[in-house]
């Protein structure tokens, strides 16, 4: 088992909403599993070194998680898409270890 670093984008870039969400994430070390995703229920995050350039100024949280707690999203030919899913039930939370927030405050 290894620890990996992920980046979860907050509130689709809405900084005011991101600040509210960040407080909850910081306090409880968790991410909310949202609705209506394409690759199954879970909290989605980019691998820290795979975040696209055009997303780097979005409000985000950098965190750590065990690699056995995630599902990497890959194409059928095995090509990684650069992000992963932390499986969970819609409306519930998944645990993470927060490292830092960026572009939030």
């Amino acid at each position, binding site marked *: 088992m290894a620890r990996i670093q992920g980046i979860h*984008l907050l509130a*689709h*870039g*809405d*900084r005011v909403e991101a600040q509210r969400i960040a407080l909850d994430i910081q306090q409880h070390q968790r991410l909310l599993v*949202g*609705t*209506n*995703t*394409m*690759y*199954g229920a879970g909290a*989605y995050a980019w691998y820290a070194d795979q975040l*696209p350039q*055009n*997303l780097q*100024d*979005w*409000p985000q949280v950098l965190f750590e998680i065990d690699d056995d707690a995630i599902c990497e999203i890959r*194409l*059928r030919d095995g090509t990684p898409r650069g*992000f992963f899913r932390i499986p969970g039930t819609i409306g519930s939370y998944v645990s993470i270890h927060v490292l830092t927030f960026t572009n939030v405050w």
Partner: protein
Amino acid sequence: MDPGTRIQLKARIRQEVETMLTEGDRVYLQGLSPSALLEAVENELCFLGLYAHEDHETPVVIHRILEEHLDAWCQLYLWSPKVEIDASPFIQESQSEAVKILFGDETLYFDFGQTTGPLRFETMSAPRWTELDPYESDHAVS
């Protein structure tokens, strides 16, 4: 948004939607309501960073494009039956030096629509590859 930018955006959306619908969990996706699927696609496009967070125009255009085309794209990529090539006795997917597959101007079709009588064979003109490329023409699906 100028027409050229809109065409580029539509092509990118279509590319991403094709990936989502073909690589995603088909049973899960087919179980989503149309509105839930639309929202899921929008969430994914946002996640992929198709627009900057201060850009309020592009999400509106994306929503319009999806409202206009998502049903057709779903028919094309999500609901159309997939040919199980590996299980088919009639088709060899992998090419080898020993077996050559010729792509000619005519293709032989088996008519499975009939329920009685001998199996009927038909030929018809095969489309050119350029006609099959969904990204070549903006009018491929409209």
